[in-house]
């Protein structure tokens, strides 16, 4: 783990970072999707109470990612 000072200087080139860490990214996404699937199985439609309020956050994050990758 880097020091706070190092972290402050860290600016991420998203495309290159993604290429370098695709195994981690894939694993995180897979774990998230499996967990979501199991929760949908357990809670049914009730899961929407948890997901829907965060959809705007997800959309904003994705828009920022796309902008950063393009820019």
């Amino acid at each position, binding site marked *: *783990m880097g020091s706070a000072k190092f972290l402050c200087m860290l600016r991420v080139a998203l495309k290159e970072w993604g290429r370098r860490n695709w195994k981690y990214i894939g694993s995180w996404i897979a774990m998230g999707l499996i967990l979501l699937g199991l929760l949908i199985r357990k809670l049914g439609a009730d899961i929407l109470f948890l997901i829907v309020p965060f959809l705007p956050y997800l959309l904003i994050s994705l828009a920022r990612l796309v902008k950063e990758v393009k820019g």
Partner: protein
Amino acid sequence: MILAHVTVPVIIYGFFPQLDLLALLIGANLSSFDALPTLIRRKPPEKPIEETHAATVLHTLFFFLVLFVPVYFLFGFRIALSVSVGGFTHVLIDALDEKGRMLLYPLSRKFYGPRLFTYDFWTYVTDKKIFLLEFTLFLISCAFLIL
């Protein structure tokens, strides 16, 4: 932590099925609403640790103590307890990172915690030890959800 805000409440539910899983999960993710200023900001702050995220009342134990009262009157003891326990897990798990959290708010605005994990998102998701920890929690929660 990232997935732990879902896996830890699921594990707690596995041990205490008297609680309500959905209420636990809602409580455990309420705090994340203060991430909005971070998402819509134009440029990152000089120090990532100074982000608005995790520095509001939503990331305090006090908030979930207070929230217990209206939720109790609206939905009853079981739901109120589940929401508050879920909220506590979020704040306490987050307090493990190098930023810490305002655990004694409103008595103190100081950030407390053991400073075990990095706060920086990009470093966090590629840290082997953190990944192993989250993966272990993921496996345990999957076992509880499947069985």
